[in-house]
């Protein structure tokens, strides 16, 4: 079952403290996080995490501060070792790699973007972008060509010889992104990469990332504490709470079928019109002489189109085949949370 091409995180536990093994036994016996901390002075950071990310998919992990997001993402490249459990990538058991294999894995198969950029302050922008390639021991020519290419693709032409301190936060994270992508690794790990940026720059960077991903099809794990961001960019969003995944699904599933109160509370204040797509509220009836809209556009965009056409209804098309219809009223209902789902 591990042979399918994907990243598989299986029964991962992580306990911080002096005697994690002993604490693990208590946890599997059912002790909760609070008691473990108060009576045994161990932190249960991850509690039986299972997550499956297909190759080329964009998996977001969303949770509040202290929920274990950073701990989780660092297990994928084993910057943090699990207390128990395994991680598979394609056919390889990552948790069993020896030191040398692990270095190879980190050099060629994963790369990472950090919340506070973690650029090398003594290297220029171009030298930072080439860092992963230097570690890979690439020849000079490949190193230069690829770094220059990525400098260009993140829109930093001309900043070759600047130092990180001379750049704004947004530009620094572009360098961080270019550094990660230049190594051509299949897995891209991003720990709150845009959290340190202000909202406008953050959206700009999200767009940069989305556009790159449409073309590159990396296997991405993206950490955020911002549900808007999560729903906007993820193929799938996993909600993490106290070291447990309480729901993992597409943005629409998260909004329309929240697993419990906790998720509902989160999704309450979400701008649904910008996340949900028409496909989620489609009705079977096909109308005559109605305008056509694509099922993949958001409710907000659909509403705008319908209004601009001075109409009240629209037929929904999927690959230019009409599959149903929507009305202005159902769209508005869906946006303002009257959850009428088919």
């Amino acid at each position: 079952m591990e042979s399918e091409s994907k990243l598989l995180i299986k029964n991962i536990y992580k306990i911080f403290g002096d005697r994690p093994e002993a604490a693990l036994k208590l946890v599997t016996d059912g002790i909760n996080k609070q008691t473990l901390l108060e009576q045994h002075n161990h932190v249960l950071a991850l509690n039986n995490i299972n997550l499956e990310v297909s190759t080329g998919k964009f998996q977001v992990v969303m949770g509040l501060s202290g929920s274990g997001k950073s701990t989780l993402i660092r297990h994928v490249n084993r910057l943090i070792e699990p207390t128990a459990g395994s991680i598979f990538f394609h056919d390889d058991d990552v948790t069993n790699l020896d030191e040398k294999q692990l270095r190879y894995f980190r050099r060629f198969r994963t790369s990472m973007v950090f919340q506070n950029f973690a650029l090398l302050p003594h290297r220029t922008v171009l030298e930072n972008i080439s860092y992963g390639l230097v570690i890979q021991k690439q020849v000079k020519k490949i190193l230069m060509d690829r770094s220059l290419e990525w400098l260009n693709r993140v829109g930093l032409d001309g900043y070759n010889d600047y130092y990180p301190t001379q750049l704004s936060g947004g530009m620094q994270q572009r360098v961080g992104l270019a550094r990660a992508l230049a190594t051509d690794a299949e897995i891209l790990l991003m720990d709150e990469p845009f959290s340190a940026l202000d909202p406008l720059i953050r959206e700009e960077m999200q767009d940069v990332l989305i556009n790159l991903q449409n073309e590159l099809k990396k296997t991405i794990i993206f950490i955020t504490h911002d549900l808007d961001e999560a729903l906007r960019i993820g193929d799938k969003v996993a909600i993490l709470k106290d070291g447990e995944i309480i729901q993992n699904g597409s943005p629409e599933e998260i909004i329309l079928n929240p697993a419990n109160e906790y998720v509902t509370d989160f999704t309450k204040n979400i701008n649904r019109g910008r996340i949900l797509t028409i496909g989620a509220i489609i009705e079977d009836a096909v109308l005559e002489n109605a305008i056509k809209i694509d099922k993949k556009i958001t409710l907000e965009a659909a509403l705008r189109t319908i209004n601009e056409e001075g109409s009240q209804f629209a037929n929904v098309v999927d690959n230019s085949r009409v599959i149903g219809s929507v009305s202005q009223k159902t769209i508005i209902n869906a946006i303002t949370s009257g959850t009428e789902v088919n």
Partner: protein
Amino acid sequence: MDFLDKFPSMGQGGLRDIKKSIDLGFRDFSRAYGDSLEAFFEPLLNLLVWIEKLLVYSPWPLIVIIFGVFAWLASRRLIVVFLTILTFLVIGFFGMWEDTMATIAIIFVATIICVFLGIPIGVLMSNSTRVQSLINPVLDIMQTIPSFVYLIPVVMLLGIGKVPGLIAVCIYAIPPIIRLTNLGIRLVDKEVLEAADAFGASFRQKLFGVQIPLALPNIFAGINQTIMMALAMVVIASMIGVKGLGVPVLRAVSNQYLALGLMNGLAIVALAIIFDRISQNFGKRLQKHMDRQNGI
């Protein structure tokens, strides 16, 4: 009441025996190994003599120019260059050229030794808290023990001469470079180090590509202090046969020649200021881009 009035010491006889056995033991040791130790330090002696000759026998204008250029390369500041050249001209004018060159030679060699030994030791300390807690007390002792005390075994082993002087200078001057290398590496931003790990950097790639470059400002502060302390040792080292500015100072002290003492003392101070400015400015230039970025 006798017990309280007089400290119950072990008595003259016992004490004498202990001292005697230590002294004799060490003398036997030095008789047995003195020659091979001397042979071991032979290359150092040759290097020191060679540099001294090079400095003394080169035409003086060349030396002045070289130091001027060096000052420029390190500091990129004209004022430092100007002061350097002026100092050397004044020193030469007052007849202290040869002694100054001898002093520079020993400082130079001592600094090289301290750097080559001190940086690796500092790296070792930074990698292991256990090693750090072993070496730190040794450094404390090296810095606080009166230098005359460790001159005794050094002289017993190697006699009077340049090499024992050099060793004495190194013992006194090496702690700062070790400490600051250790500190500098420990202060390297954990997140940057984590990034290096995440990209699969090996121990060496991390050490030479991240840790040492980022610790360089601190390492240079250490080199700066090492040079200063080596200069401070010059007078004491001249007691056991090191040539240089310390010799006339020592002569001035024992004969109460105020002017001679003052002139040579001031020459040492002037050298100290030059070396300090040059190495500090170099350290500062290294640091230019390395201030911790403030994120947003």
